[in-house]
């Protein structure tokens, strides 16, 4: 993919499919998802038809695009609330319209409590070959603060079942820094995840999003706000343990057995093209970003009426493209090429960041973040984008 970007061939084409339903809303979550009884939710059967229709519309919009699709990622929300056949219908339509590459990665996000041997079989039948399971934590106290509907064993059991069913690419999502978590309980969470034998782990620092139940609890003083220093320690602990277990980092929040990286997500960070299907889904095609209306009912109405479901779009100018390239590229262990930076001071900026222990060489031309640099990635990015100034002061 990286060669593609620099070479003459076009970047890969991917699909993201958004399922906007959950059984209940977790207290920390601000994703575009709807629980029973919520306004604008629409019906699940309409969702399938509309999603299929949007795939057809994508083809109509790209009538001569020769690229087969390199990955499909079905996320949410909780895709596993829907019958596997519904998800399969969308994947099938993508394959029908565009074709899939021989090694296409097809991921579905799954919540532990929905996972049964039957569902797993159905997903395999539908062409799904990768599962991303929302484990979040093994600490019952943390799962309670997060409002999760599964217990410690739920995710472990789900990962085992997935392996038994024949999924060789399974990922677990973890959240660290939740109030109530301790260094010991976090280590136990990571250990538990590793012991399931999965080949991929994502670990995210808990962020208190405005408007969520968690934000209200923090504001009211019922829950302590997450502490950045603690989060940094947890990150380091996870990084140590995962690396030792044979899952080195490949992106700031992602670790995998080499070869088991999530190619779809790497595509986001590498400037690939993708079409986002579903309410609120984001898309990117050759420097244009757009996003759909958020409400499932509005999205369904638009798509089934043959209208464009986009709510907004932006055409990136050179400066914005450069910002994104730096911002995204810097997150990858593969590193970034300083030549994407502009200004006469760029080499000195990189050297200054290296001297301060934030960057290290990653190849002949590439540089990547050190572990300390990963924890300060946003500050490093801002500095990289202001080459002259940081060269003068660094």
């Amino acid at each position, binding site marked *: 993919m990286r060669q593609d970007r620099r070479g003459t061939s076009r970047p890969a084409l991917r699909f993201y499919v958004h399922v906007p339903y959950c059984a209940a809303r977790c207290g920390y979550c601000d994703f575009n998802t709807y629980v029973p009884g919520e306004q604008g939710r629409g019906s699940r059967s309409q969702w399938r038809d509309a999603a299929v229709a949007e795939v057809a519309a994508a083809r109509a919009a790209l009538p001569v695009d020769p690229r087969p699709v390199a990955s499909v990622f079905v996320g949410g929300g909780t895709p596993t609330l829907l019958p596997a056949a519904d998800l399969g219908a969308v994947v099938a339509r993508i394959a029908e319209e565009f074709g899939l590459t021989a090694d296409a990665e097809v991921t579905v996000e799954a919540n532990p409590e929905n996972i049964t041997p039957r569902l797993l079989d159905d997903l395999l039948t539908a062409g799904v070959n990768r599962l991303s399971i929302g484990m979040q934590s093994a600490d019952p106290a943390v799962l309670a603060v997060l409002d999760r509907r599964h217990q410690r064993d739920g995710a472990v059991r789900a990962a085992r079942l997935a392996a038994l069913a024949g999924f060789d690419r399974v990922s677990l999502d973890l959240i660290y820094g939740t109030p109530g978590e301790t260094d010991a309980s976090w280590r136990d969470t990571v250990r538990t995840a590793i012991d399931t034998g999965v080949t991929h782990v994502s670990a995210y620092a808990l962020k208190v999003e405005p408007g969520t139940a968690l934000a209200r609890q923090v504001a009211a003083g019922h829950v302590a706000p997450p502490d950045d220093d603690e989060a940094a320690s947890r990150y380091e602990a996870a990084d140590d343990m995962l690396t030792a277990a044979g899952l080195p980092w490949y992106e700031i929040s992602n670790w995998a057995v080499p070869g088991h990286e999530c190619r779809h997500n790497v595509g986001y960070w590498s400037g690939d093209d993708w079409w986002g299907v579903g309410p609120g889904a984001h898309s990117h095609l050759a420097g244009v970003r757009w996003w759909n209306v958020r409400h499932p009912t509005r999205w369904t109405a638009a798509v089934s009426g043959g209208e464009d479901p986009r709510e907004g779009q932006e055409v990136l100018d050179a400066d914005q493209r450069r910002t994104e390239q730096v911002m995204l590229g810097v997150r990858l262990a593969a590193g970034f090429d300083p030549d994407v930076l502009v200004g006469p001071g760029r080499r000195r900026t990189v050297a200054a960041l290296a001297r301060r222990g934030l960057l290290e060489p990653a190849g002949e031309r590439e540089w990547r973040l050190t572990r300390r640099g990963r924890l300060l990635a946003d500050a490093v990015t801002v500095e990289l984008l*202001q080459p002259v100034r940081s060269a003068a002061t660094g």
Partner: protein
Amino acid sequence: MTTTPGSTDQSLIRNFCIIAHIDHGKSTLADRMLQATDLVSDREMRAQYLDRMDIERERGITIKSQAVRLPYRAVDGRTYVLNLIDTPGHVDFTYEVSRSLAACEGAVLLVDAAQGIEAQTLANLYLALENDLQIIPVLNKIDLPAAQPDKYAAELAHIIGCSPDDVLRVSAKTGAGVAELLEQIVADIPPPTGDPDAPARALIFDSVYDTYRGVVTYVRMVDGSLDHRQRIEMMSTGATHEALEVGVISPEPVPGDALAAGEVGYLITGVKDVRQSRVGDTVTTAAAGAAEALGGYQDPKPMVYSGLFPIDGSDYPVLRDALDKLKLNDAALVYEPETSTALGFGFRCGFLGLLHLEIVRERLEREFGLDLISTAPSVVYRVGMEDGTEHVVTNPSEFPDGKIAEVNEPIVRATVIAPSDYVGAIMELCQSRRGTLLGMDYLSSDRVELRYTLPLAEIVFDFFDALKSRTRGYASLDYEPAGEQVADLVKVDILLHGDAVDAFSAIVHRDRAYSYGVAMAGKLKELIPRQQFEVPIQAAIGSRVIARENIRAIRKDVLAKCYGGDISRKRKLLEKQKEGKKRMKMVGSVEVPQEAFIAALSTESDR
């Protein structure tokens, strides 16, 4: 006999000002006079009509003196011309009062009948007496249930040396007694006695820059007259101009043919250069002008200095121009360029007090659209070195290193008036501020006047607030410069990551150095965001560190959350961070947000 501007018979003119302690009702009394003389109709009336600036109306205080000409038909059947000047009451603007007094023959001394004599009542009374003005003592606010007119009439009579029966009683709110007061003014205040036939001499007592008309100059004609279209001369510079417009304020500008001896009015020459029209200068005619200028004013000496810096460095020329314009009608404002390593280019400005500083700063911001940082105010120190050289220090960061023989600090003579119950509390406060008691007098059985010598630096900042809180708001304070004294003063530097930050240095008494250092270091620790490295904050006297705080290094600055494909959102967050970085000032290797400077330098909780 006529009362047309330019040909008013001097015997019909009464020039007076209203003086009082702050808030005793001067501007409100002026309102009633504007109405009683039918100059402003009830419909056009608004409270404190003469407080014309937005900032005056918002704060409910007078900052600038205002002159207004009132035609008044007295009971004797004759029409008089009353030139009234409403003055400010706050101690910072005493200079404004003294300039107004020089344009008058009499003064109405107003005292709130519920408060009695206060510190600025005395200060302004003494000023009026020094100017040989006829004083008319008046009690105001007699409508208030809490008014004690008999008690305070006795106090006033005692101070002035008249009979309590001579003290008039009015309510500027209801208008009661105002008619009698106007009669008293006509009867008691002497008419002007200039020579109408002598060469023209007019004293400039105010000057204002107007965007449309250029410089508007306010004058009191002493001798002779100035005509419309006549060529006039500024006696200090010899510069001549044409009087494009002459007139009187009644209550808005009314152009006329001339200004004659005894009158108060304005003139416009079309000149835009504000320095051409200096307050205190004498105006005469270019042809056959006067030989000798009138006694001008002594420019007031600034009491406190502070650096003013534009937040946006490119606004520096705008700031310079704005200061030039404000200076025109604010003789007390002085300034010279200053460079700060932390704040860039700005001006070191001298002010009469903190209210003055605040008002100037606010006027600069609102009238000229500037965004400013002001550094911690400082008084002026004189530092003698062992080698015999001397430094005048208005900026703490310029406090000399090396062998210091002695440091002199300015002192003031302060007057505090309060109910006698609070004498103990006041003495304790003054003692803690290194004060020396000069004397104490009873104004009446339960009210005292205390006189102290105090270091200016001890009272100019928060002394008044401390005084008010210890006396439940009953004490009033006035002070005037009273020379210098030698004191044990040191400079406390604040070091960020080893580099001294000039804007944070302060000169304090040795006994207070520690608490200042601890407070400032603590405040900065809260205000400066964590950096990628640990940042020690130290307070030091010379090389001796007296207080220390640490800002721990930031360990995590990354959005480690799954945003899926919403990359626009992430980019926008980053662009915001990038913008935020522009509002940072680099102090050595430490990034300090503008807001931190502003908050750290705000005066409230400094000492």
